[in-house]
Structure formats: structure tokens, C-alpha cells
């Protein structure tokens, strides 16, 4: 069992439990929150994630991820009034929490550690 402090040390970053590493989609959503800042509401996040992943993404996947990130304490949300284009329906704006930024950093470090020492291009069929 890894202790959080030990896992966060750059030297031992490869010891981060894989269950603690954010999934690719969670990272995409958190990075969208970072990029969009105060404009991060559902539709904008969905469009940003689609643009970055270069594919169509179902709204349900984004909202389920946002819900999960909020439950983990990595993101938070607040309500704001909506305009006429959305029939006056409220908007929910999301923002990344400091723990979310830490989780992104750890995921990136774990990812880099996995790739360390591998020279590209590899001799494959790619």
C-alpha cells in the first residue's frame, strides 16, 4: 500500500497506484476546465473535449465524468442564469480544484515515467 506522500515524490512517481492515475477521458475533461476557466459549462466542455480528442463524444460521457470528478473533490460547480438561446434554463459552471491540478500533475508524471527510456520512432507497423 503506497502512502500518498511517497507516491507524490518525483523520484518514486512510478509507484503511484494505477487506480490513482486519472483515466484519459478524466484528464481531457479536467484539462478542458483549465483551458476554459470561467467559461467552463457543460456545452463548452463537451465541445472542447471533442476538439481535443478529434472525435464526436456523447454528452452523457462528459456529464458522467464531471459528476465523478466532483464526487472525488477534483472539480466543483456553481449555477448561473441561462440566456434565451437555451430557453432560460440555468447553466452549471465547473472549475478545477487544487486537488484536481495535483491529480493532473501526478497523472502526467506517471505517464512520463512509463515512457522514460523508450526512443521513438519504434520499428513497428505504425
Amino acid at each position: 500500500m503506497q502512502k500518498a506522500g511517497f507516491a507524490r515524490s518525483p523520484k518514486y512517481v512510478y509507484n503511484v497506484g494505477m487506480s490513482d492515475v486519472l483515466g484519459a477521458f478524466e484528464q481531457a475533461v479536467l484539462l478542458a476546465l483549465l483551458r476554459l476557466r470561467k467559461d467552463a459549462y457543460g456545452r463548452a466542455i463537451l465541445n472542447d473535449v471533442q476538439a481535443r480528442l478529434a472525435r464526436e463524444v456523447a454528452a452523457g460521457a462528459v456529464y458522467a465524468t464531471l459528476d465523478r470528478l466532483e464526487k472525488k473533490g477534483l472539480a466543483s460547480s456553481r449555477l448561473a442564469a441561462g440566456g434565451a438561446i437555451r430557453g432560460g434554463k440555468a447553466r452549471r459552471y465547473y472549475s478545477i480544484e487544487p486537488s484536481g491540478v495535483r491529480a493532473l500533475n501526478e497523472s502526467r508524471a506517471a505517464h512520463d515515467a512509463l515512457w522514460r527510456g523508450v526512443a521513438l520512432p519504434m520499428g513497428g507497423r505504425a
Partner: protein
Amino acid sequence: MTMTDPPRWAERALALILKPRDRQTIAGDLLEEYREAILPARGRPRAQLWYLVQIVSLMSHVQLGVALGLGFSTVAVLFNVAFPLAHLSVPEPPYANAFGFGGVFMLFGATGYLAHRRRGDVSASAITGGVVAAVSMFLLMATFSVIHAFSIRAFAPLPAFAIVGAFCGALGGFASRLVSAIR
């Protein structure tokens, strides 16, 4: 309903599946995207299809199970009740029962596969498979009970079907996990 809005029934269905917390915000996001981006780019029929796909993507695995169960039982009732009543003969292939049950079990497994793709959790697959089996078989048994003499004993196999559905759903979940691992 105006030409720039999704169908009213689809908006009602969306409100039905969303949690109260998300009812306004997610419906507003989808409406905004529909009006500003999807409808101008794709036209009305494809925009409506997009809206329906979003609704399905927002369903929980239990809601998905209920919806698929209702869909399956409707098809089954059509073939077993409505067509015979309308004197429409449906040719019965050899080993029809074996194919029928095999198909049903594969359907339970497929729903489990789908649930795992959405949730990444085999328990969600088992629940979805079990719900599909319970809902569809309950409606089928209820239909046959109404047509024939009603008997509570007609529902006796229901728990067994739910367990088989959960098992097939879990198998579908494991298949999805295997496919993800290979990819």
C-alpha cells in the same frame, strides 16, 4: 414546439431520465447545442437523431436496462401475440426455441457489454442484464397471462430469468473488459 426545437416528447423523456439537480442545466446545454450548432449544420432529421443519441448516452445503466427490456418485450409481444391475432403467419424455423433463447441470452449479454462500455464496471453489466431480463420477461409473462387464464404461477420463472440475465450481463461485461485490454 417550433422548428428550431427538438421534439417535445424527446424533451420530456430527457427530463424524465435526468436527476432533479441536472434537469435544467443539461437540458439547457443540449438545447443550446441543438439550436446553435447541430440544427444549422445537419438539418432537422439528423439533428433530432443527434438529440436522441444524447438522451440514450445520458441514461443510467438501470434506465438503459428498463428501456431495452421494454423494447425487447414489445417486439416479442408483436411476434407472439399481435401477429397471430392479425392472422399474420410468421414462419417458424427449425430449433426455433433454441435460437429464441440463445438470442435472448445474447441480448442480455450485449446489454451487459454496453453497460460496461459506458460505466467501466462489471457490476453495472450484471445489473443491466438482470433488469433487462426482469422487465422484458415480466411483460411477456403478463401478456401471456392476460391472453390465457391468469395464474400467478406463470410468473414463477421470473427470478430465474433475472439471475440468468445478470449472469449473461456479467459475461458481456467481462467480454467488454477483454476487448478493452486487447485494444
